[in-house]
């Protein structure tokens, strides 16, 4: 009996580092090593480990349709065993990603898969990721919708996609909305508003932050908001990195705009 307890303890002690090693390898783009770590021993009832095995197999070289199908089957099994715990939420998200990016799928299936992630746990960080991806589908993969409807549908996802729990992701979601509007030549107050929301979140990356200020200045200028544009130009000039080659161009555009009103 003592021996069995000792063995169980040893396995338990051993399992945690193996799992950590697997996640470390996975986070470091070492997919094969991660898969080896996760599958060194049978996952058994360890659902996180089963998730790790599936997530690493997805990109284990050589990537093949057969492997992707295996991963889908493993993820569906995880969901079938328990549809509500953390591994299940992640499995649902990965299934949506597989439909979107790893194998051919109809747009309706992709949309439904992302919506399933959001519906299952709307406050979860993965729901925020899924909402951001769904916004992209609506913006660029729904040619059946008129352009204003594409943008409106993507913007409706703001309560989830713009959640404060992942501020960097939220910032880019708002920026993606604004840039889609600019791509479709729909430069209007909404685009300015989305850029303002992205700026309010405050991205950590210095180049994203400074580019946002230029975008704000240029869009405000195009909409005739002279004072706001000047303010954004000033804000950019005060924070630009020394390696930013746009500095002089911005300074001159600001000076030109300031002169225009005189």
């Amino acid at each position: 009996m003592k021996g069995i307890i000792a063995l169980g303890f040893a396995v338990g002690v051993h399992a945690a580092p193996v799992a950590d090693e697997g996640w470390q390898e996975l986070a470091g783009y070492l997919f094969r090593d991660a898969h080896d770590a996760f599958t060194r021993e049978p996952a058994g009832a360890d659902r996180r480990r089963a998730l790790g095995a599936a997530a690493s197999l997805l990109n284990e070289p050589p990537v093949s349709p057969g492997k992707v199908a295996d991963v889908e089957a493993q993820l569906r099994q995880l969901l079938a065993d328990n549809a509500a715990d953390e591994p299940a939420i992640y499995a649902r998200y990965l299934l949506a990603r597989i439909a979107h990016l790893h194998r051919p799928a109809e747009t309706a299936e992709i949309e439904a898969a992302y919506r399933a992630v959001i519906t299952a746990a709307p406050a979860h960080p993965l729901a925020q990721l899924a909402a951001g991806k769904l916004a992209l589908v609506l913006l660029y993969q729904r040619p059946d919708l008129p352009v204003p409807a594409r943008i409106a549908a993507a913007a409706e996802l703001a309560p989830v996609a713009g959640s404060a729990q992942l501020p960097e992701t939220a910032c880019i979601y708002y920026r993606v909305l604004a840039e889609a509007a600019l791509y479709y030549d729909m430069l209007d107050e909404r685009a300015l508003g989305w850029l303002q929301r992205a700026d309010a979140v405050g991205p950590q990356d210095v180049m994203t932050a400074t580019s946002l200020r230029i975008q704000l200045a240029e869009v405000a200028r195009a909409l005739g908001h002279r004072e706001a544009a000047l303010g954004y130009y000033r804000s950019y000039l005060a924070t630009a990195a020394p390696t930013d080659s746009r500095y002089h161009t911005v300074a001159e555009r600001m000076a030109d705009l300031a002169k225009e009103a005189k």
Partner: protein
Amino acid sequence: MKRPPLTTVVVLLLLIGTYLYSAGRLVLRRGPAVVDPSIEVIRYAHWQIEPGVREAFNEIAADYMALHPKVRVEQMDIPGRAWKQWLRTGLIGGTAPDLVELASYENPDDMLARYFTPITSYLEQPNPYNADEPDLRGLSWRQSYTAELVPVEGVHYFSTNLLEYYGAPSAMVTVRMFYNRRLIQEAIGEDRPPRTYDEFVALCAALQRHADVTHEFVAPLAGSWFNVTQITDGLFSAASQRVALTLDISHDLEMSKVEGLVNYARGRWSLTTPAIRTGLQTVEAFGRYLPPGWSQLNREDAMMQFLQGRAAMLATGTWDAGGILSQADFPVGAFKMPAFRRDDPKYGRWTLGPMSEANTFAGVPFGLTRTSRHPERAIDFLRFLTSRKSNAKFSRISTWLPVIKGVPVPKVSESFRPVEEGYVGGVNIRFFSGEANQVVLQYLYLLSGNAASADAFIAQTRGPFDRAFRGELDRLARVSRETLRQKDSVLAGLYQLEVGTGLGRAKFDRLAANQLTVEAERLRSLRTLADYPGK
């Protein structure tokens, strides 16, 4: 007893001699670590075999060894042609040196992740070798760099996918026109570099006339496809800066490659767009002064023409400066290719002015390999190498530009200093893809010689460019799909590692944001290709 034939004796003697020589080399070779296990050996490898660089590295290594007698620092300079295979073999075999020069095009993310140690945490600590510098001692190692190693796309020291620093850079280079001061003096009566593009073309004409009069075969410009594109890149871009601003979809005053391609597919610019045609015409203006057969020559040929006094000017990177200055038997000057004026009647309509070189990033970064036997010692040497004192020494000996705050630019390198007060770039048709580059190289000859013609170039290349640009948009979408797929797995790993300590602003959040940006760009490209299928 029969004596062995003479040839056998000779062969035997040769074999014995070779054996003794090899054995002697082995015994006498520098390598105290072999006999003294207390010696730490740090090896660092790079491909910068230009004159001056190896010497600079050697002197700094000698300084370090004088400071740390129990350390031996060995430099390994590997020619560029052998670098890729040499490095891969070393990394896979576990025999790579401790420190290796990095370049984003040589070291993909999977290679960095597998074989190199991130040095972000080291860079955020002060560099102890700057402890005597009052203005640097309170700064982190990263902040001791002139531009503080801004982590942007395309730099060699940071991976935007792995979100980690992998290299500590040592130097910076720009592109300049080197010139034979004596020939220029003879041709125009004064040693003065041109200040405008018109003056540059006039200088080429004067040099040509001087050669005709003196019957000396001296070309105004040293030619090779490499050196000529060092000139044309700037001209294409400067002639079309205002157009680039109209093609900047995101309104961030920087037309990206994808934005340029998307707007090409949407029919918003083409080779016949006046600004693009003007860029080609600028090349037409100086192309007539290129030496015959220039497009068949390579960099080394052009360098030889210049060093032998058979060409008066040579456009190249300042990485060649050490070699030029040490080998030329004539006085050498250098200047930045002059820009067009906005009021230039021929070329100025779509220009903003000289292009900014503010984004010239620090290069020659060394990364720490995971197989290093002395990683802390290797990092210590790297800190020493990039301390203010060592960087000043490196810059002085190599003539390459320094990268550490407060290091003076050597007098000889003053004209290499990046010009920061300039404008954003324009549309450079060569930069859009590898295939577009090949089209330019294949047909650039049409812009040279007495029959130079921008229209002929456009007529010949319209079809190839059309295929190249649309093909590149499709290729980029396919390539980014692979990296996006990989990030799905990587994010799963980061999520599990970081969920306990908070995901907001953590790597998971930052990589998810990066993935969203890249995915948006990819889908926008695919939308464009679908909506604008072309001919």
